[in-house]
């Protein structure tokens, strides 16, 4: 409930509960679970919660942990938005919509910038700019469905041979 600001902000909170308080796993194991969830798509919290729940209490544990992560805020969200929607013709609600749209724009832009910065740190300028330009052209001007583009990139990364050193690292593990 306290994990404001999207998935990643809740990770330390989950670690505190699972490792420090309930001793369900060691910090190392938690690190492994985190690495595992990063290897899969989708929201990170529910994967963490689901898996830790599964380890502790089997399928039932998984269901309970996932529901506990998801349900309270979904319910709150439905109540608030249904209330807001029922008033949507009121002038002051229209004013609220108008005021919040540019704020959300700024938040999205900041997120976009963070993704770009991370990309540049891990991929370098050349590949980042290249991939950004190709994505921009395909998505915006050629109107390719984003799911198709992402799937193609994922398959390319998986199929493409990894450099020698990377393979050596793999085998050592």
């Amino acid at each position, binding site marked *: 409930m306290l994990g404001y600001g999207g998935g990643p902000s809740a990770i330390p909170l989950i670690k505190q509960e699972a490792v420090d308080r309930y001793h369900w796993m060691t910090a190392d194991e938690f690190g492994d679970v985190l690495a595992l969830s990063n290897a899969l798509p989708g929201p990170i919290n529910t*994967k963490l919660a689901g898996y830790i729940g599964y380890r502790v209490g089997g399928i039932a544990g998984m269901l309970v942990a996932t529901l506990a992560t998801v349900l309270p805020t979904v319910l709150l969200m439905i109540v608030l938005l249904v209330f807001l929607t029922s008033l949507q013709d009121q002038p002051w609600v229209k*004013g609220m919509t*108008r005021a919040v749209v540019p*704020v959300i724009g700024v938040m999205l832009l900041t997120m976009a910038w963070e993704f770009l910065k991370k*990309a540049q740190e891990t991929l370098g300028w050349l590949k980042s700019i290249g991939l950004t330009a190709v*994505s921009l052209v395909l*998505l915006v001007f050629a109107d390719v469905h984003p799911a198709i583009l992402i799937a193609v990139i994922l398959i390319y*990364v998986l199929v493409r041979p990894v450099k020698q050193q990377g393979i050596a690292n*793999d085998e050592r593990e």
Partner: protein
Amino acid sequence: MLFWHIFLAFFIPGILGYGGGPASIPLIENEVVDHYHWMKLAEFSHVLAVGNALPGPIATKMAGYIGYEVAGVTGAFIALLATVAPSLILMIVLLNLLYKYRNSPKVKRLTMFIRPTIAVLLGWMAYDFFADSYRSSGWIQMVALAGISFVLMEKVKVHPAIVIMAALVYGAFFMAS
């Protein structure tokens, strides 16, 4: 058929949204606003605003509400299931295999190579929001609100939830019409 569409609309972002919750936002928008026309961009901005102001994972909050809006409680349930279940099931089924490769460079590369595309999607969505704001409020209000909220969130480090609340209150009093 509608339930199947709801499932697809959240299954695709769930399975391709590498890089955590924010990565799936533009993918969900693409399905919900552009493809199935379940809501307009302005309504979607409500969902994002309220979703950002509430705690917990953003993707599931959006799925739960939009599913509910489109097809009631069953819709909410299907949308949540489509968001959460695929990767959770994969995680448990492929546990040993994944465990072996958890530090493999290929797996790390997946997120690395997907980031620029997600950045473009987020940036383009931001553009849509600014264009929408320009049409409904004019450029003075738009630039002022965007500028002030940017400074508050990024420079003064005010929590986004507080900035959103402040914008909502401001809008209710000064932008009503």
